[in-house]
């Protein structure tokens, strides 16, 4: 009884002593933490990785200039060549920012989920007396930065190119970054709040549900956009058709959407209408501030409960063996070493069990397949051979670029992911070289099956001649070998054994270098194969009105030379990184 009374008294005392959450709030200390982190990272790069920093800067500047050139030409074309009623720039801005809003919401949601519920730093911060909302804001800011830095960086050449074409006033160049920064806070807040609510509601299935939602939304959006384009009346790319298309896309200009506010803000700024710009800037700022308050309140009320729920579900018991799955791998890859097949099974299981890893790829390849299957709806096969050739090479390039993201994102990190478990590989009774070659074999097998299927499907749909299909198939084979060699070789040469997150490994220096080299390789090979075809077919086209540029025998000679050159480059790009990787991998100690 006395114990109960004591507790009752205690309850009363403690209720009265309800703490003011601001008492332990230390926002400035968290900014100091970020500053320290940044200073040390940059300092370390300057001391130890000047070459890396130099290459990142050079590639960054080249990419920026390239984008600026493309945007400048595109806006110049729209401004001076396209003569239609509505302002095409305004329409493009609205569509661009609406698409971006959706992408940023999803991107911030996924990054926010990992930051809020999976990060060891979060667990540590939640042990401190910082208010829950402060930890949430700290992670929200990080998710916002990570999800939007690429957009902020890449939209600057677009804005400057647009400003120069539209002869924007001088203050446009100083004020547009403010508009963009304010804008990204809105989709980021929606995305992170969505992740929080999703985990609060379905803690166990939040990630899977999120991935399915994003995948479904992407596919539905793509199918819908495709139908809008296909069903627009008129001949494709004529002024009438464009006007009809803009009319069908009018919903992108709904005044209640954040994309509308930022688009109108920038259009007003371009036109020098400061009054209208100020109004929309205030609308964005007010909504950003309101969302911030809502998100903070939401976090204060639910974040810790959601965190607890996210870590309170029972682990799923997995089947003891998936013998059919193992049999497929052992039968399908009979030509590789058994130990290496077992390692591959291990890599494959890790990959399959993380939906965040493969879902994006599935969506991309799915969309591409969908496009290729429906390529006839666009009536491309009725075009001249010259155009069909151009379209087929564009399709091939897109498939190859997606393949490059696959090899950079999934194949490159394979060696790094061994990390602290590297001793298992070190003790295996197989030469280390065999392990790398087997990873290469798997990468090539998977890449060849997926890419050849897609490219041949596209060619068949375009009703291309058999020799063109053969040429494309050979090009794809060279690309698959080269991209796999690059990714496996560089992955072994530049491993990051400290990191366990494959996306971070892929986003690091080695992964970025691999991606850039893969892109350069693709462009070189595709250009080598496409240019002779283009010249020959362009000659045939012009031959209708005059004489052909190349004869068939000349074309055969040049295409044979290109094929040989591409094969030699492909061989070098496959073998050199693999040799470098093997040499480093054999000496690797941990």
């Amino acid at each position: 009884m006395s114990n109960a009374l004591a507790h009752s008294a205690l309850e009363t005392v403690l209720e009265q002593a309800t703490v003011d959450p601001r008492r332990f709030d230390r926002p400035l200390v968290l900014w100091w933490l970020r500053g320290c982190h940044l200073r040390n990272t940059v300092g370390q790069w300057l001391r130890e990785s000047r070459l890396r920093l130099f290459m990142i800067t050079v590639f960054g500047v080249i990419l920026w200039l390239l984008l600026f050139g493309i945007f400048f030409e595109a806006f110049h074309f729209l401004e001076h060549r396209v003569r239609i009623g509505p302002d095409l720039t305004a329409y493009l801005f609205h569509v661009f920012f609406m698409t971006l809003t959706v992408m940023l919401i999803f991107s911030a949601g996924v990054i926010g989920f990992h930051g809020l519920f999976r990060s060891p730093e979060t667990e540590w911060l939640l042990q401190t007396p910082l208010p829950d909302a402060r930890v949430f804001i700290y992670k929200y800011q990080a998710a916002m930065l990570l999800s939007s830095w690429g957009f902020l960086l890449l939209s600057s050449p677009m804005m400057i190119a647009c400003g120069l074409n539209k002869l924007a006033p001088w203050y446009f160049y100083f004020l547009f970054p403010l508009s963009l920064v304010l804008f990204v806070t809105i989709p980021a807040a929606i995305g992170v709040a969505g992740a929080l609510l999703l985990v609060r509601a379905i803690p166990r299935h939040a990630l899977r549900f999120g991935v399915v939602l994003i995948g479904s939304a992407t596919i539905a959006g793509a199918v819908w956009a495709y139908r809008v384009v296909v069903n627009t009346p008129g001949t494709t790319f004529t002024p009438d058709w464009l006007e009809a298309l803009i009319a069908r896309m009018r919903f992108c200009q709904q005044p209640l959407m954040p994309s509308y506010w930022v688009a109108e803000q920038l259009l007003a700024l371009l036109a020098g209408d400061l009054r209208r710009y100020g109004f929309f800037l205030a609308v964005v700022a007010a909504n950003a501030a309101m969302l911030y308050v809502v998100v903070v309140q939401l976090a204060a009320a639910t974040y810790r409960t959601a965190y607890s729920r996210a870590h309170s579900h029972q682990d799923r018991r997995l089947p003891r063996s998936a013998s059919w799955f193992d049999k497929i791998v052992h039968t399908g890859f009979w030509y590789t070493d058994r130990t290496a097949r077992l390692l591959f099974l291990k890599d494959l299981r890790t990959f399959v069990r993380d939906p965040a890893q493969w879902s994006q790829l599935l969506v991309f390849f799915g969309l591409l397949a969908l496009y290729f299957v429906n390529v006839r709806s666009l009536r491309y096969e009725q075009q001249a051979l010259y155009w069909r050739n151009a379209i087929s090479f564009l399709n091939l390039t897109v498939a190859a670029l997606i393949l490059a993201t696959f090899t950079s994102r999934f194949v490159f990190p394979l060696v790094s992911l061994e990390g602290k478990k590297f001793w298992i590989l070190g003790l295996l009774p197989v030469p280390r070289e065999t392990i790398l070659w087997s990873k290469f074999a798997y990468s090539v097998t998977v890449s060849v099956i997926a890419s050849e299927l897609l490219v041949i499907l596209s060619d068949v749909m375009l009703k291309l001649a058999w020799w063109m299909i053969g040429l494309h198939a050979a090009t794809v084979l060279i690309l698959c070998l080269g991209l796999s060699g690059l990714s496996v070789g560089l992955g072994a040469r530049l491993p990051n054994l400290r990191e366990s997150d494959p996306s971070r490994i892929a986003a690091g220096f080695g992964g970025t270098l691999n991606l850039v080299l893969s892109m350069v390789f693709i462009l070189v090979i595709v250009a080598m194969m496409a240019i002779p075809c283009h010249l020959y077919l362009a000659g045939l086209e012009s031959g209708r009105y005059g004489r052909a540029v190349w004869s068939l025998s000349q074309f055969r000679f040049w295409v044979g030379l290109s094929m040989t050159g591409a094969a030699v480059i492909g061989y070098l790009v496959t073998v050199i990184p693999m040799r470098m990787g093997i040499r480093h991998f054999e000496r690797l100690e941990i």
Partner: protein
Amino acid sequence: MEFPAVELDHVTKCYGTKIAVDNLCLTVRRGELFAFLGPNGAGKTTTIKLICGLLRPTSGTVRVLGYDVVRQGELARRSLAYVADEPYLYEKLTGREFLTLVYRLYGMDELTGKRRIEELVDLFDMAGYIDYLAETYSHGMKQRVVFAAALLRDPEVLVVDEPLVGLDPPTARLVKDLLKQRTRHGGTVFMSTHTLSVAEEVADRIGILNRGRLIWCGTIEQLRRERQTDARLEDLFLTLIAEETEAQQHEQRTST
């Protein structure tokens, strides 16, 4: 009226259908070094996470120094420090910067914070590496920095999970001495460990958890008296766990 350092009142924590902590009632008094023992999967880490506020109980109440961890979490965490078995440090911060972050987060003044860091650097012999990035540290070095961070602000309740894993013998000895010293000065230590010899050496009381249930709580002497033996803690622990597991299995058989 003095509140207990840690109080778990009929606490249950479920992971789906699995009961990780089952109706746990436990009181750790101030100035006590309490060793929390149990086999793998017994629910020790879950209990620690409940005390630190990282998990919320399915039912029951967890109090630290009288503060309800769910309703007054910030106050509870203010007086508590947790040293996990896997030490967390920011890889791109030096040990000194990490310690600075800790004293600033807890609102200590700069002068006191800096002085405490110097004392702890000397105490844990960290001068050789404290100004290097944490990514270069070994497990033991990280563990020392994390211990220093926990002691920096002199918490009233120190919760440690496997405190001696990865520490070299001199540092392990130092940590054991520090834990005992803290309790002599009125501090409380809640220690989860598998190293029964350490528990036997330093603990004032022990609690043994098996399959989420507290099967024994008291001093080692009480346990020996109850069992009428002079056996070591290791033997007593194994006997208790075996008996309890058998009893639980029997209970399950009869209920089905």
